[in-house]
Each structure stands twice: as structure tokens, then as C-alpha cells.
């Protein structure tokens, strides 16, 4: 109900924005990318977790992550859907969205982003759907437990799955191909998103480090979100048997590794320009380290990296509840980190702001922006919640197969 209410308030705010135009936001000539774009970068980042858990771990023959693959995939699909939608919100005139396809310049990273996001969406959807087919077949075997409309949905989606060996062979091969294909596309999606900034000559964005910096941050927030989702699904659906303490322990270690990696890229990103302190960068960096953005900056650094590392470094910290807290910190800190990537740079242009109204010099999102941004986050969670209500959040068939293989191996 809370999520639905937040979505409705967001929808009301969006209707107001459609009616009155982007003037209802606090975005003006200088800060033309506000929290909508921060939210977009955040969603794109979170969506990368699908490729990490499903593809990278699958291809490296890591089997313990099997029960987590569906959680990761639905997070990826939901996040990438709302990444695309929030861009339409940011455009202000949704009916002109097709202009991106009709009149896009191939030289523009924005066009590349449109291509890569739609490709990643389709691949993630396939990676979610194909392994779901055997599970839909299991659900249909117990169709008397479900209402008619759910049975109709299951039949529509997978009544053709007959557990035939030929079907399994094709599905396994297809999932293998998808796992390989999704990695370059996932890297592209976040690299291209970073290029939206890095190909623009501005203080804070003029960096060759941006692609790797964004990808490492994306893996971190994605892994953090999986920790959160694991805990919620485990406690809510009583899945202690499938999502075990060992999963939290291993995911915790992955989060520590990714947080250290992201910390390394952060040091690269800030130390090098801070060492040179070029005049144009000085104002931007001072604003982040000790100026008006310092409280958010240090909050983001500590909550997304230092505190989670500190919690998860210890074995006791990798137990479900502390790991869940660390995951929440990573997710919240990472959202603010995206805000800091977008806004402070826009407030520090190379040419001094001259002869502009006072509200052009500052940016604090309007209530409509907050409502839409929070509404979109709530809607993404709502999609995940609906999915978990309709389909098994643990891949039943794969997990059974996995445990059978493990028990055979131990015999």
C-alpha cells in the first residue's frame, strides 16, 4: 500500500509537470539535469547486477549463486525499465520521445544510450524468461492452488513447456549464449551512460576514468541491492532453507571486494584533479570536499563504501541482518553519489554565471521532482514485489538440479 501511495503521489506530480511544463521543477538553464538524471544513472547502475550474478558468476562456474539469479534478474529488468521511463519524464514532452529514434545523431552518446538500453532490456527480459519456463510448468502442475487469472497467465507464458530433453537442451544453450552476450552489453550500457558526462567538457566530468568508475560503482550498488532483496525475500517468504547464511557470507565478501574496487576508482577520480587543482576544477572540488556539497559527499562516501566495508569485513557482519543493513547503506549512499556526479558540476560552469536570476545559481529539487523520483523508485520496487507474488523468486528447477548435482558429487 505504501508503494502504491508513493506511486500515486508521483503520478499526480507528473500530471502537474505535464500540464505546467518543466517549469514546475527546480531545473533551470545551468542545472538542466537534476534528480531525474541522478535517478536514471542510479537505475542503470542497479540494473547491472543481472549481468554480475547471472552471467559473470554462471560463466565462472560459481554455483552457490543459483538461488539468487532470479532476484538479480528481476531487479535488472525493473531497474532498466524505470531508467528508460525516467528519461521520458526528464524530457518534459513525452510525445517527442520518438524524435530520439527518428532524428537521433549517430555521433551522440545519447543515441548510443538509447540503443544500448533497449538492447539490454530485451536481453535481460530473455534471461529472466527462459529459466522461468520449467518453473511455470511446475506451477501449472499445481494450478488448483491459484486463481483463474494466474493460471491463464501461466498458460499464456509457458503452457508449451513439456520438460522435453530437446527443450532443456535449447534452453540451456540459449541461457549460455545470453550469459555471454549480456556482459559486453552491460558494460556498454554503463560505459555509455558515463560518456554522457565524460564526453562533455566540464569540471568534474572531464575524465578518462569515468567508464571504469561508473561500472565499478554500478556493480557495488547492484550487489548491495541484492543483499537487501535477499534479506527481505528470505524473511518475508521464509526462504531460510534456500537463501542461507552462507549466501549472505559470500555476497558480503563480494560487496567488500566491489566497495574496495569502487574506492580505488574514487581515489583516482578525485586525487588526480585535486593534486593539480586547475582553476576550473578547484571550485568544483572545494565544493565537494569542504563546501556546500561536503555533507552529502562525505555521507555518500562513508555510507556507500567505508561503513559497509567495515561491517562486512567481519564474519559476524556478514550474517543476514548486518549484511542487510550494509546493503541498505550501499544503496542509499550510491543514490546520493549519483546526485553528486550530476548536479555540482552543472553549478560550476567554466564561464561564470552572469546576468541570470538568483534561482539559476542554486538547485534544490521541487516537490514534484522529489515525488516523481521517489514514485519511480517505489514503482520499481512494486514491479519486483508483483513479480515475487506471481512467480517463484527462487528458480525451483535450477536449484533442484543444482542440489542434485552437489549431492551426487558428494557421494
Amino acid at each position, binding site marked *: *500500500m505504501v508503494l502504491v*501511495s508513493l506511486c*500515486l*503521489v508521483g503520478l*499526480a506530480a507528473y500530471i*502537474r509537470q505535464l500540464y505546467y511544463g518543466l517549469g514546475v521543477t527546480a531545473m533551470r538553464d545551468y542545472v538542466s539535469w537534476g534528480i531525474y538524471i541522478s535517478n536514471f544513472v542510479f537505475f542503470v547502475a542497479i540494473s547491472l547486477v543481472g549481468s554480475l550474478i547471472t552471467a559473470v558468476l554462471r560463466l565462472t562456474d560459481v554455483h552457490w549463486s543459483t538461488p539468487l539469479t532470479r532476484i538479480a534478474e528481476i531487479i535488472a529488468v525493473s531497474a532498466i525499465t524505470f531508467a528508460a521511463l525516467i528519461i521520458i519524464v526528464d524530457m518534459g514532452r513525452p510525445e517527442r520521445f520518438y524524435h530520439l529514434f527518428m*532524428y*537521433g*545523431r*549517430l*555521433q551522440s552518446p545519447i543515441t*548510443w544510450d538509447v*540503443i544500448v538500453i533497449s*538492447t539490454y532490456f*530485451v*536481453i535481460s527480459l*530473455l534471461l529472466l524468461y*527462459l529459466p522461468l*519456463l520449467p518453473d511455470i510448468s511446475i506451477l501449472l502442475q499445481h494450478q488448483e492452488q491459484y486463481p483463474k487469472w494466474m493460471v491463464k497467465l501461466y498458460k499464456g507464458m509457458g*503452457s*508449451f*513447456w*513439456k520438460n*522435453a530433453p*530437446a*527443450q532443456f537442451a*535449447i*534452453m540451456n*544453450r*540459449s541461457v549460455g*549464449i*545470453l550469459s555471454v*552476450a549480456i556482459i*559486453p*552489453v552491460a558494460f556498454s550500457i554503463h560505459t555509455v551512460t558515463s560518456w554522457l558526462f565524460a564526453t562533455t567538457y566540464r569540471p568534474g566530468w572531464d575524465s578518462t576514468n569515468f567508464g571504469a568508475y561508473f561500472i565499478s560503482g554500478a556493480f557495488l550498488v547492484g550487489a548491495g541491492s541484492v543483499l537487501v532483496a535477499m534479506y527481505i525475500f528470505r524473511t518475508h517468504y521464509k526462504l531460510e532453507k534456500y537463501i542461507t547464511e552462507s549466501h549472505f557470507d559470500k555476497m558480503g565478501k563480494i560487496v567488500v571486494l566491489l566497495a574496495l574496487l569502487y574506492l580505488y576508482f574514487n581515489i583516482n577520480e578525485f586525487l588526480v584533479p585535486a593534486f593539480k587543482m586547475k582553476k576550473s576544477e578547484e571550485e568544483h572540488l572545494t565544493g565537494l570536499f569542504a563546501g556546500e556539497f561536503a555533507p552529502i559527499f562525505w555521507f555518500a562516501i562513508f555510507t556507500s563504501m567505508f561503513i559497509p566495508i567495515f561491517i562486512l569485513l567481519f564474519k559476524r557482519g556478514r550474517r543476514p541482518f548486518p549484511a542487510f543493513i550494509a546493503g541498505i547503506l550501499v544503496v542509499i549512499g550510491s543514490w546520493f553519489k549519483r546526485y553528486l556526479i550530476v548536479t555540482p558540476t552543472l553549478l560550476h560552469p567554466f564561464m561564470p554565471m552572469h*546576468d*541570470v*536570476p538568483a534561482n539559476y545559481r542554486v538547485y534544490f529539487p521541487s*516537490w514534484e521532482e522529489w515525488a516523481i523520483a521517489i514514485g519511480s523508485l517505489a514503482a520499481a520496487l512494486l514491479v519486483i514485489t508483483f513479480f515475487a507474488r506471481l512467480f517463484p523468486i527462487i528458480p525451483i528447477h535450477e536449484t533442484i538440479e543444482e542440489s542434485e548435482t552437489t549431492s551426487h558429487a558428494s557421494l
Partner: protein
Amino acid sequence: MRLYNLIALILFSSVFTGLQAQEKSSVTLRINYYTHQNLPYLVAKAKTKINGKLSPVPGLVAKYYIYNATGDTVFLGSAAMDFKGESLLYVPASAQAVFQSQASLHFMVVTASNKQYDEGSGEVTVQKSKLIIDTLDGRKAVATLLVKNDTGWIPMKGVELTLGVQRLDGILPINSTATASTDSLGMVTGDYAIENLPGDKKGILTLVASIKDNEVVGSIESGINVPWGAPAHFITNHFFDRTLFARRGQSPIWLEILAYSMVAMVWGVVIYLLVQLRKIIRIGKSAAV
């Protein structure tokens, strides 16, 4: 039910926040008269005191009037104030009869009262004038200021006038003493002393005479083209080239090959997988039969 009430409360409070009653502020309205290349126009500026400081008032609609010979007002037009609290109106053709019939022009601007501000008004009276700029032998500029009285056009003495060259963001004086007062013939002359100032392709510059905020004639600017500059050499036009910074459809061939082949490869895989899905469906259907 309580949840719906909460949503309704949030929505309504947001809508009505902006409608709360506020104390009205007074508006100071100023109007100035300008002539550019003999085209007259009016500029109105609205300001109000905020925390003891005068700040521009954007958004107000200024209505402009001219007084005719009998002292009645004739409506010229209206224009909204921009973010600097300024609005501009060219004297329309419909007002030419009133405009031409008088030597002294008396204008008025008014803004209506609204929820935030009281009504405001401002007036300005100027003498109708002409500023003529020409060249003399050699590189010498001469400007003449004439004002209209009941008998005709007469020279006006003692008005500060600048001779310069029009550049992108202002006027560049033609020499170090380019600003001077008009003499008894209403004239100011000056030698053009700038070497190799870039003009257009043929070296054409616009020589300008300018009077700013004079109490009698307002602000006037007039110009003529002179071939006294150095021909400018423009960088080759890349508009039709295939470059990374070109327009749509003009991207470099290497980029098109690279991008389209990558898209084709990835979407080829996606299409292959969709075909595989179709195979799975077919196998399922045949197994069911």
C-alpha cells in the same frame, strides 16, 4: 479510507500552497525611449524592494501609451516583462499618425495590480530627433544630431555622442577622443584610427554614432557601412563534411560501420535466441499432440 484522505491532503495542500494570501508590494516603473537606425522603441523596467534592495519584477504585463496633441492617450501595445523585469515595444505603424504629428513625444507605461504587486506607472517625454552619420574625405566620421521643433529640424548643441564601430557585444570607439559634445551645428567629427580591425569578407565595418540616456532625446543609435576594416578569413566550412560534430546523417563512415555492425551483431544474437524460443514452443506443441 485513511490512506485516501492522506493522499488527497498531500495533493490539495500542494495545489493551494501557492494560493495563500500575501501582502502586496509596490512596483517602481521606468520607461525609456530609444531610436535604433531611426526605428523608435520603448523599454520599460519594473523593480520592487525586497529586503531593502531593488530587485527586478518579471512576468508583469506593461501597457504602453502615447499622448496625442489633445492630451488623450493612444494605446501602442503591451509586452510582458522578462526575467530582468524588462519589456520592449517598437512603436507600431498604427501609431504613426500621432507619432509624426508631434515634435515632443510623451509616453506612458502602466502595469495592472495583481495578487503580489500594486499597479505601477511611469512616463517619459522626449524631443523627436534624428541622428545622421556619414563619412568625410579620408577615414573621418561625422555625426549630426537634429531635433524637431515647430518650425522643422534644427541642430542640437551640447549632447554627448560617441563615434565607434559596431562589434559583437558593444561599440568600439574609433579613437581615444571618440566621445564628445555636439557643436552648434549638432555635429561631432572624429578620425578613424584603428588599424586592421577585422570586418566581413570584404572588410566592411559598421560605423556607429550613439547617444545614451540623454534627458532631451533619449537613447539614439545610427550606423552606416564603411570599407575600412581588414577582410576576415573565415575557417573552412565543414557543414557538409562527415565529422563527429556534424549534423544528423553526416556521421563519419567509420563510425557508421562500427556502430551498425555492433548493433547488427548483438541484435543478430537476440533474433537467433528468439528463433530458439520459437523452436522450444514448437517442440512443446508437437509433444502435446
